[in-house]
């Protein structure tokens, strides 16, 4: 049985002085997928601010809004009700591919996009050589598991240790990071061994034993999906199977393709952003 989850995601941006205009894009609307159905969703940015949406290159629902009046605070509320599924596990062996088949499939196809390094996921030859050695002789699926475990072992989860612009390499060197860093490092290593992999941005209910009707403080979360015949999700941060607790919002090559909030404004530099995520298991 899957879960029905209610997500309330509030982002408050406080500027250091009055901002004349701001132009913003929010990527906060959960996708509807074979494994997840978004029953209802809404993104608002304060009274009188019109919000319109489009589907970007990656298939993400983008909410666009500009605030034309002078303001010193901006509050974005994203609420959604989503039905999720238990973990599917790895599909039957007949649907999986060998390294050879993978190579052929990827060379000139669309999957190549998820194999190429990006600015945030480029790593040194030293690290990629280690990843290749550590996964020698493994099947694509077991290699993916091994990489995810290796990242979890190497990087300690330390909130605040890194920022949104921290690269996979920097996170590796530091040995600390958050889910974004662990996801990007996992992507980097998967790509160096030849596995197409993508970044997933979304939400996670923190408790596997949550009863219906209980609300928890959740958070924005990030994990990965790799392709070896079909896309399979892995959560390198928690090591838990991706299933009813995970809600997918956006997928791309790295964080830069799927930032929950992106904006530009006329006004003084600096400011503060506070984010709260409440996740309620409804059923």
């Amino acid at each position, binding site marked *: 049985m899957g879960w029905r989850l209610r997500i309330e995601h509030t982002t408050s941006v406080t500027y250091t002085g009055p901002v004349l*205009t701001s132009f913003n894009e929010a990527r906060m609307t959960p996708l509807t997928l074979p494994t997840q159905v978004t029953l209802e969703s809404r993104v608002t940015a304060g009274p009188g601010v019109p919000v319109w949406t489009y589907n970007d*290159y990656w298939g993400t629902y983008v909410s666009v809004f500009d605030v034309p009046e002078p303001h010193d605070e901006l509050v974005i509320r994203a609420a959604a009700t989503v039905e999720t599924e238990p973990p599917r596990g790895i599909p039957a062996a007949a649907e999986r591919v060998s390294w050879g088949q993978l190579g052929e499939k990827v060379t*000139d196809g669309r999957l190549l996009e998820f194999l190429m390094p990006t600015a945030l996921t480029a790593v040194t030859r030293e690290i990629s050589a280690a990843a290749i050695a550590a996964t020698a002789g493994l099947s694509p699926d077991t290699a993916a598991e091994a990489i995810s475990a290796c990242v979890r072992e190497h990087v300690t989860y330390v909130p605040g240790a890194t920022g949104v612009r921290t690269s996979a390499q920097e996170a590796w060197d530091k040995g600390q990071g958050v889910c974004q860093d662990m996801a990007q490092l996992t992507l980097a290593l998967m790509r160096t061994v030849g596995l197409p992999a993508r970044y997933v941005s979304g939400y996670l209910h923190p408790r596997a034993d949550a009863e219906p009707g209980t609300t928890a403080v959740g958070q924005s979360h990030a994990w990965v999906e790799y392709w070896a015949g079909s896309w399979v999700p892995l959560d390198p941060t928690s090591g838990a199977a991706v299933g009813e607790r995970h809600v997918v919002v956006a997928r791309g090559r790295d964080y830069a393709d799927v930032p929950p909030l992106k904006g530009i404004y006329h006004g003084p530099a600096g400011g503060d952003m506070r984010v709260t995520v409440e996740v309620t298991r409804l059923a």
Partner: protein
Amino acid sequence: MPTDLIPRVIDAAEWDLVARGVRQRVRVLEAFLADVYGPGRAFDDGVLPWSLVFTSEKFRREVAGITPPNGVRVQVAGLDLIRDEKGEFRVLEDNVRVPSGVSYVLENRSAMIGLFPALPRDNKIPHADEYPSRLLAALRAAAPPGVADPFVVVLTPGVHNAAYFEHTLLARLMGVELVEGRDLFCRGSRVYVHTTHGRRPVDVIYRRVDDDWLDPLHFRPDSLLGCPGLVNAARRGTVTIANGIGNGVADDKLIYTYMPDLIRYYLGEEPVLENVESYRLDDPDVLDWVLSDLGGLVLKPVDGAGGAGIAIGPKATAAELAALTTEVRANPRGWMAQRPIALSTSPVLAGEKLAPRPIDLRPFAVNDGADVWVLPGGLTRVALKEGELTVNSSQGGGSKDTGERGAWERGG
């Protein structure tokens, strides 16, 4: 760019071929761009690999799914043609981002007619005056649906831009406002311009600002040359940006090597104008061969414009070739190779005497969605310095008035 006094003449039948070739090229470039930012059919059908697009520095995912109102992304194209050893015109480069140079055509023609007032009367020399009205018509035709009388502006990076003169000239000849990014602002997904009579909604922006600088929300966040909100206004369909954002993926010099195949694929036609023989370096064998024969080839950066970064093997020193080898080996995707072609020459006035100098031809085309119109004559660029092979104005080149009727030569 200096003007040479001796005009160049192209035979009418040959010009007809050039014009047909340019029209065909613009049609295929449009089809390719619609495919890249749409379904990607040609890639899935194996005509060319996805890797070309994914590795192109000018591919702009930010505009995927934006469909221009009249389907046109290439309102203005400038192709670079040269004659090969047999005298046949070949395409050297496609330019569909913000091609410049048309102001020289207009100025050269009016200078020649000013100096020799009898010539147009006696020889039916076409005026180039039609260009601004054709361009304005194409821009108006690109306006969002339902706009009866579109308000068109020319967006310039400003007075420090090398082509600022052209921006002012085109705005003046079209009778539209010349604006900078700071004159524009977005409200509610609509673009407005500040004028002396208050704000006015803008329907079509003929932009002479590169993609990277157009909208700090989607591209360079430090840009002050554009206007935040522009891309989403275009996506919303309230304004048209011409030429289209992301067009640079089509004039990437590796994509260029596929143009003959793409003409067959999209149009079901044979190319009217052939490419210059070119080599892609993604094949390791080709790369090795090119590197072993670097002194006999021309190497071009795939995303270069205006002749920047081109290495001419036969003219390079040993040290330059060694540096080039390192650079190309490190980034084969960044380069393509061509056989050097001895450019055809045309007489120029060198001091008091006539002397032959290498030339090329840049025809300009305007696409209004119903028809691709080719400006009669185009721009002839000429290497003025003796021994110089590149004709780009940034490399000290000049220009010539170019007529296509055969009228200049034997008339009068």
